[in-house]
């Protein structure tokens, strides 16, 4: 279809994207791009990916209407796309299975990955166990502390977890360290990138693997009465959001809203709302928006959610933002945590703190649009990993009650 915005191929999305990496990685990225281009049209590969989605991940994921929650969202109809029910607990597995299968096709025995909240690390460790790959996960030291449970999970799955103590000790430093490993070990190692950012082919490839979210959800909504008025998803690097948007990109009536982490508030400077508070630049191999100072130094980001605590954003989002096809809203820590508790108490669903940012966006939008609106929210992950942190936030730990 001409004029379709779906599945834009890269390397550039408008003026964003590309491949700004050391020459040493160019051959590996070319090899990966080539392998992926061949694999995506090879039934041996696509059938295996489909089989794994069905029999391992548990796809298709269901949609759940949440009327008791929706009462707090202006009475709009709210549906959740339940990526939290996937095996290993989030949307990350969709991408990882695709890249792990590619690793096998490349004949490589070792995978590395970065992780923030730990969900991408857990998914990578899971796929590595399944496919007999050696697995090393880089994780910022601060994140190993706030997501300690996921560190243990990765180790139980046989992965080596390396805490990264440099820089801000978060996701961005984990990515730097993973790239350093990759440059040194590229012959034997594939970098399983966790989000729709980084150098080409990652933004387009990760989007393709996550696209299943919107392909399924669009069908599911049509079966239930029609397209939603809006699709909402949280944005860290942007993989669950781009996967949630892609199949709706040509449906002009559907608003697409990415919810960025506004931390303490965008005006405090302590936030991770890249499209709201950033400007164009190059970070981690692509041209996109970045939180940076006037000289181009990356600024520290802040979010209660380790998975959204990243000062960059995928280039396709920056493009969708620039052409006005998608909106990006800042959601503070406090708003996200209120939405987190609300979903727990009204629906018996414990969301990831990342996904709670999208829930908070839905509350705001529902109040704006009222009862006639139908909203689809991607619940990108479950909150088991966040129990400790949430219990602290709400002062619910033993000894915490006065």
């Amino acid at each position, binding site marked *: 279809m001409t004029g379709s915005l779906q599945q834009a191929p890269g390397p550039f999305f408008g003026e964003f994207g*590309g*491949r*700004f*990496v*050391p*020459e*040493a*990685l*160019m*051959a*590996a990225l*070319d090899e990966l791009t080539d392998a992926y281009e061949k694999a995506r049209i090879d039934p041996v590969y696509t059938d295996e990916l489909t089989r794994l989605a069905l029999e391992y991940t548990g796809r298709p994921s269901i949609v759940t209407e949440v009327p008791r929650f929706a009462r707090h969202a202006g009475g709009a109809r709210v549906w959740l796309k339940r990526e939290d029910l996937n095996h290993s607990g989030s949307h990350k597995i969709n991408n990882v299975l695709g890249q792990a299968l590619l690793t096998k096709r490349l004949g490589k025995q070792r995978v590395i990955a970065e992780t923030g909240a730990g969900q991408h690390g857990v998914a990578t460790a899971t796929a590595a166990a399944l496919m007999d790959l050696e697995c090393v996960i880089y994780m910022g030291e601060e994140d190993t502390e706030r997501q300690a449970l996921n560190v243990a999970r990765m180790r139980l799955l046989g992965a080596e977890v390396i805490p990264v103590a*440099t*820089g801000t000790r978060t996701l*961005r430093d984990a990515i*730097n360290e993973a*790239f*350093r490993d990759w*440059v*040194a*070990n*590229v*012959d034997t190692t594939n970098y399983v990138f966790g989000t729709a950012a980084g150098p080409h082919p990652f933004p387009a490839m990760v989007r393709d693997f996550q696209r299943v979210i919107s392909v399924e959800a669009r069908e599911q909504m049509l079966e239930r009465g029609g397209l939603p008025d809006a699709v909402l998803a949280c944005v860290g690097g942007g993989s669950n959001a781009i996967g949630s948007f892609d199949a709706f990109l040509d449906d002009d009536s559907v608003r697409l809203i990415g919810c960025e982490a506004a931390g303490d508030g965008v005006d405090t400077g302590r936030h991770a709302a890249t499209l709201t508070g950033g400007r164009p*630049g*190059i*970070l*981690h*191999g692509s041209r996109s928006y*970045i939180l*940076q100072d*006037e*000289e*181009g*130094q*990356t600024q520290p980001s802040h979010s209660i959610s380790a998975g959204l605590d990243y000062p960059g954003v995928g280039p396709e989002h920056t493009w969708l933002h620039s052409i006005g096809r998608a909106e990006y809203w800042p959601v503070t820590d406090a708003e996200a945590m209120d939405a987190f508790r609300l979903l727990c108490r009204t629906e018996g669903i414990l969301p990831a703190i990342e996904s709670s940012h999208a829930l908070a966006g839905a509350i705001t939008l529902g109040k704006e649009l009222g009862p006639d609106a139908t909203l689809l929210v991607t619940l990108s992950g479950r909150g088991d990993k966040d129990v400790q942190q949430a219990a602290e936030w709400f002062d619910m730990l033993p000894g915490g009650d006065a």
Partner: protein
Amino acid sequence: MSALEDRIDEIRAQGRAALIGYLPVGYPDVDTSIAAVVAMVEAGVDIVEVGPPYSDPMMDGPVIQHAAATALERGVRVDDTFRAVRAAADAGAQALVMSYCNLMLSRGYDRFAADLRAAGGVGVITPDLTPDTGQEWIDAARAHEVDTIFLAAPSTTRERMHLTVGASRGFVYATSLMGVTGERASVGDAAAQVVAAARDAGAARVCVGLGVSTGAQAAQVATYADGVIVGSAFVKALGDGGDLAALKAKVAELAAGVRGDA
């Protein structure tokens, strides 16, 4: 021919390789780093490479990461890079900048090239910008007569080598290994192969960097390369204490190496 190319040819005519020394600006503080640049030249560095510290140095190992982080904590600015360039040029060296591209992009490629030129600098090494994504930079650099120095790696394919050599001015930066900056016990065979591949693709001047830290290694590399690039070993010698004497001693060792006297 550029001034940098002239200088490399002149050194080659002396029957030796050039010594190219890298230091991050602002480590351990701005004034000491500028004094260190001058000290390097006095001790035998022919070509100086200064780096504006960057928050996300993806190509650097622990020594340069630490130096960059220290400099940033102490408030180093990109403008300080041009001060260091001026000092290197005044001391009689050819002065280059090695910069991650976001700092250049943020200033504007054109302004970056103009500022470098105004400070007496002659070229820029771009570790995370390759010719295929660097056309805007190349255009700006050509307009200001600034040399564009691109990297070639052991993994560089024949096709990419032609692209790299074609877009490079001054010299081609051959990385001796697959990895980040830092000292290594030995310089492997890959370095000589990258140099040979670059020459096959038409490169007139090829310098080798990454992992060279001793006079003996420099002497070995000098047998096949036009220049030997040393970074981490100099940064380490300078150290948090800003030890100019230790730096000069290390430079002297490497300077003897490129003359085959190790």
